[in-house]
């Protein structure tokens, strides 16, 4: 009995000690970066920029690929002597694909790391969570690839370098109706994702306007693993294709379930498909499917080819379209900083607003009055286990 008490006491003491140690360290680290440290509105030393991304979790490919590309952009700009003679320092925080974590990450980037500007997120729901914090604190944020219109509607501090869903939905609807000549399509959307709901809505409107018919509409929740009920319901609806505006993990599983149920129609989708894991999970079940994206590696401009080979040299893998947008987001941000008189959040914001005809990897980027980028989209076809260029659709 006595021995037990001693053991318990020892456990409590060691626990308290370890907690004190952890928090002590955190405070120590914090004060080093406190007033007088780098970042914020300071005019000397390093320029600190923050990146919040899903480095782990269900959409880890988005975060990891985007972060590699942002890192590449930072390394390139530092190799050229930095901005106004100052080195750029990148701080990346993980959101784990969770909206609460995204808001926390942005708060930490601003309060602890004192960043001048923020890049992130890929998923619209997370950009909405993080963007609200950035807007409230007056720190400019550039989302590389969130396509839901609501993201930049948060306020004058939130920008993006990609097209938005009213356009992306129209692209696929137009392609399905005019190129594939389909009349009946079913939709499966993710009801927990602002991106998926918005894209489904815009696709339905554009497709029915062009004389097509949506014969079935089903939904799932991010993280679901079983889609057989939804696909069974769609099977007898007469749909000639299924529009799945979701993220790659679930899309891959939906493709395999579709094949298991013997539904032989192609899937259609958006840029949320853009990750190598799509093929790892979906495999042969994806053959003949199409999705819209920001760029096609196999039909790239000279500028894009330079980026692709630099990325491959640095990381040993081919970048995704979302990675390319991460690179563009960073480069647009650097350009805005160069243009600004001094590097403060307010001048960076002005610089971003003034972005016109920037030659990016994913095309020419002009930030419009809604702080969105007007750009064309490409449609990719899945053939032989990879995505190949099919056509370009102008806005």
């Amino acid at each position, binding site marked *: 009995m006595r021995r037990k008490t001693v053991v318990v006491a020892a456990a409590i003491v060691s626990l308290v000690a370890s907690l004190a140690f952890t928090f002590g360290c955190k405070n120590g680290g914090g004060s080093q970066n406190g007033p007088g440290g780098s970042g914020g509105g300071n005019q000397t030393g390093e320029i600190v920029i923050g990146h919040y991304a899903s480095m782990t979790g269900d959409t*880890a490919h988005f975060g990891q690929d985007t972060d590699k590309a942002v890192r590449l952009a930072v390394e390139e700009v530092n190799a050229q002597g930095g901005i106004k003679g100052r080195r750029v320092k990148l701080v990346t925080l993980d959101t784990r694909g969770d909206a609460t974590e995204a808001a926390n990450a942005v708060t930490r980037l601003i309060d602890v790391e004192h960043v001048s500007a923020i890049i992130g997120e890929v998923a619209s729901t997370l950009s909405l969570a993080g963007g609200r914090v950035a807007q409230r604190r007056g720190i400019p944020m550039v989302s590389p690839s969130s396509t839901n219109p609501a993201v930049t509607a948060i306020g004058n501090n939130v920008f993006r370098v990609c097209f938005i869903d009213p356009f992306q939905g129209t692209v696929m609807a137009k392609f399905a109706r005019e190129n594939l000549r389909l009349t009946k399509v079913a939709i499966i959307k993710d009801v927990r994702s602002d991106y998926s709901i918005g894209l489904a809505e815009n696709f339905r409107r554009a497709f029915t306007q062009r004389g097509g018919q949506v014969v079935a509409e089903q939904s799932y929740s991010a993280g679901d693993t079983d889609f057989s009920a939804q696909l069974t319901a769609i099977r007898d609806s007469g749909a000639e294709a299924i529009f799945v505006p979701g993220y790659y993990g679930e899309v891959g599983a939906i493709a395999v379930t579709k094949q*298991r149920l013997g539904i032989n129609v192609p899937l259609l989708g958006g840029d949320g498909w853009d990750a190598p894991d799509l093929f790892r999970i979906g495999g042969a079940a994806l053959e003949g499917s199409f999705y819209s994206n920001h760029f096609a590696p196999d039909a790239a401009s000279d500028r894009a080819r330079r980026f692709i080979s630099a990325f491959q040299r640095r990381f040993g893998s081919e970048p995704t379209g979302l990675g390319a947008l991460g690179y563009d987001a960073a480069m647009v941000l650097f350009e805005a900083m160069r243009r600004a008189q001094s590097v403060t959040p307010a001048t960076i914001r002005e610089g971003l607003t003034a972005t016109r005809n920037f030659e990016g990897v994913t095309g020419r980027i002009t930030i419009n009055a809604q702080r969105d980028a007007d750009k064309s989209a490409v449609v990719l076809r899945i053939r032989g286990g990879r995505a190949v260029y099919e056509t370009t659709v102008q806005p």
Partner: protein
Amino acid sequence: MTELVQQLINGLSLGSIYALIALGYTMVYGVLKLINFAHSEVFMMGSYFGFFTAVGLGIEHYESIGQTFPLYYAFVVLIAAMAGAALLGVTIELLAYRPLRNAPRLAPLITAIGVSLFLQNLATLIFTPNPRRYPAIIREVRYELGGVVVTNIKIAILVVAIALMAGLHLLVQKTWTGKAMRALSVNLDAARLMGVNTNRVISSTFAIGSALAAAGGILFGLDQLTIKPTMGVLTGLKAFVAAVLGGIGNIPGAAVGGLLIGVAEQLTAGYLSPDYRDAITFVILIGILLFKPEGLLGVVRPEKV
């Protein structure tokens, strides 16, 4: 009509996975009157053990050259995962529950939640939180009968689940260990007075329940394609509801409860809305607790005062 049959088939295969997990909850409850919340993590770990055994046997090589994984290798994966999970279950009991054998009933229950959180975070740390594609240890073949599609994986899930449940039934009814388990579930102290080595019987209960959960974990991976460290949370909770539905402590009840939950979930998703697929399980839980708290096959035992 074909749609209904299809939904029922998919529901039964999902339900048999729930049933395999539910058996572990119900066996431990029957013997110790403890709800082992760490069981859902044993299921998750079992699935990962199977994953790494298959990778260790070179499944990626077989997949890359387009060859079928040998069937006896699939059995090796199953046995290895079941053995690993059994060891894990016994260890959990030894370290976390045995020291609390005579403590108030709330203490081991809270410990079980602690073990569950510990294992889940440990798995997140070791296996990374990223979902993994489960290797195809059985090559998929599709059969179509009058518009209803059945794959050999769905059949294998049913066959493996039924075989394991039949084996368990025999074990509990015909062997000495099974008789001892039943004795423990009636009265642990009386069983000890009759010369039963209760600790050994409890260990074997944990071993068997955990092994069945690991089998469920592999079938889950095959059926649902991806696994991740948090996969046990919702699936485990549903299996727990299945055990309550069938009558906790009752082995055939857990099997029936699992199948019912699987079918209910699938029909709700197909005919009502997929948004309610998780909700229906807990609606059933509330209903059963209100109207038949002892469960479908449970018996009311008067509480001794």
